[in-house]
């Protein structure tokens, strides 16, 4: 594959990401994270429909719908990936990943539905665990945090079990 030659070594990319995380903490005191922003986004949307109820909800008071450092960080991740993909000619519109298509077919609705349901489940879990692979997996582990080590272990355990159900011997869906 021609594209593989242009890819960055993951050890190098990871090390640079680590340096970036340290620089971020140095400059702003902010640790990488992403999942809290989804709570703020949900709060923004709900606020349009029933502002009074949202103002009184405990979790939306805790993680208020405002644009903060992490919101901008998450926006930046999308833009940075877009820029890198365009500059290296690796941008590609694709509704169904190759691996999914080989196993479950080319129907974009089926894939979209699975991604949507997976998203609902994953984010509920991430908020329950108080972090995702960025907040716990990277930032928490860098701080040698006990909660993050347990969370990361459970992320992989849950993922390993379900990925085997999906891609194991028998087809379930």
């Amino acid at each position: 594959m021609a594209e593989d030659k242009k890819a960055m070594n993951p050890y190098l990319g990871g090390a640079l990401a680590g340096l970036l995380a340290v620089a971020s903490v140095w400059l702003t005191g902010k640790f990488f994270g992403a999942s809290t922003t989804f709570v703020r986004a949900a709060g923004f949307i709900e606020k349009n429909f029933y502002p009074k109820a949202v103002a009184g909800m405990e979790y939306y008071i805790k993680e208020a719908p405002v644009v903060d450092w992490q919101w901008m960080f998450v926006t930046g991740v999308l833009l940075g990936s877009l820029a890198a993909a365009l500059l290296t000619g690796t941008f590609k519109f694709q509704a169904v990943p190759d691996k999914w298509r080989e196993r479950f077919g080319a129907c974009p609705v089926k894939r979209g539905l699975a991604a949507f349901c997976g998203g609902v489940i994953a984010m509920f879990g991430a908020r329950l665990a108080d972090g995702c692979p960025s907040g716990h997996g990277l930032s928490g582990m860098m701080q040698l945090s006990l909660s993050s080590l347990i969370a990361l272990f459970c992320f992989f355990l849950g993922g390993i079990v379900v990925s085997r159900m999906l891609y194991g011997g028998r087809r379930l869906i």
Partner: protein
Amino acid sequence: MSVNLIGLATGIIFGALLQRCRVIRYEKQLDVLLFKDWTVLKFMLSAICVGMVGIYLLKDAGIAKLALKPAILGGVIFGGLVFGAGWALIGYCPATSMAALGEGRIDAFWGIAGMVLGAGIFAHAYPLVKKMLLSWGDLGKLTLPQVMHVNHWLVIAALLAGLWLLKRAADRSGN
């Protein structure tokens, strides 16, 4: 530069690194869970190695403070397992879904929409969840060196050594 602008710049660089290392691809995320491709793990562990040394240098110099999350067993264990299950289904995590959308993966959009809904459902369930799960097994904001009663550099040295051995084993097996 304001904190928010630095956040945007940090995100842009991070997103570019994720894209160039291809760790945001559905295939890479699933294949690490299926033990077929270690790219995602290499990226994560490398970032953690560099990050923990840097963060603890800053902390020892009095420049930075840790931002630990409490180890509430009911939350991290159940939440972690539930997240993992959803992660295998969507094939992206919260940050990588944004990056995947950035490189044109439309399915990530549906995943992101699902994640916003999931966050909303959690916000509504929070009072109940707090009573049931988040009240069980709160050990507090602990670090591994605190749990083991040793100096943090000892833990960092042990982790670096362990990860170096892991890398050697991976290199030998051709991964």
